[in-house]
């Protein structure tokens, strides 16, 4: 229990720190140093790096063939609500903190949604990998279509400031991908309960 509590607490503190930095980071501050961006990438890499560490500690590498399941040694799926909460808080802070700017916050929201999508599930098997690939493929196609549609609507008209940046595109894609993935997963689960 103690071994699980320490990384969760450490991660929670890191998330709070990132949230605070993201909410008060107008463009050009900190001399243009991408401190926050580096922290976000560190946040994204945590499950991958720690997973390799725990796997190496628990058992030697298995070279007998491709495993049927890539289930992580540690259950990182518990981090998903944290990433999602951080994305929601970051997005909401745009409305509640007057000096915040969307360009800065969208990096945070996009990164958290990416982390939510790519963090390993409790049982990360080949079906999950298949569904995630299918979801991201469908999400890119849908997001591009929506962006073209929106761009077309504003053709010849005056566009609002920060009209659909690349980070907005990432946010849109990840939201659609998460939606598709969980819908298909829910369908699998529902059918399993029915049978």
């Amino acid at each position, binding site marked *: 229990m103690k071994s699980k509590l320490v990384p969760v607490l450490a991660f929670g503190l890191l998330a709070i720190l990132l949230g605070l930095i993201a909410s008060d980071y107008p463009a050009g501050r900190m001399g243009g140093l991408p401190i926050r961006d580096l922290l976000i990438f560190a946040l994204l890499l945590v499950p991958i790096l720690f997973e390799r560490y725990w796997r190496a500690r628990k058992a030697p590498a298995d070279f007998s*063939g*491709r*495993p*049927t*399941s890539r*289930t992580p040694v540690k259950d990182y799926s518990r981090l998903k609500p944290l990433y999602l909460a951080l994305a929601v808080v970051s997005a909401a802070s745009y409305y509640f903190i007057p000096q915040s700017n969307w360009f800065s916050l969208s990096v945070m929201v996009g990164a958290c949604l990416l982390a939510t999508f790519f963090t390993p*599930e409790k*049982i990360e*098997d*080949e*079906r*999950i990998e*298949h569904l995630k690939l299918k979801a991201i493929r469908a999400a890119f196609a849908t997001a591009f279509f929506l962006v073209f549609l929106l761009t077309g609507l504003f053709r010849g008209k005056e566009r609002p400031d920060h009209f659909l940046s690349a980070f907005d595109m990432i946010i849109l894609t990840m939201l659609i991908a998460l939606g598709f993935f969980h819908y298909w*997963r829910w369908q*699998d*689960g529902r*059918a*399993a309960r029915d*049978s």
Partner: protein
Amino acid sequence: MKNRLKELRAAREWSQAELAEKLAVSRQTINAIETEKYDPSLPLALKIGKLFKLPVEEIFEA
């Protein structure tokens, strides 16, 4: 791809969750295979064959 996974599992009186645990996959994956929504990879098909002590071609057919 048609398969006899549901029939073989029922013969052994295993639930989807039990079979999933034996194969180290999720319950949803077993259901997706049984309902022919998803074709398993070769390593998983071989693992299923080994578990039921049957050749793969007797469980799956094109």
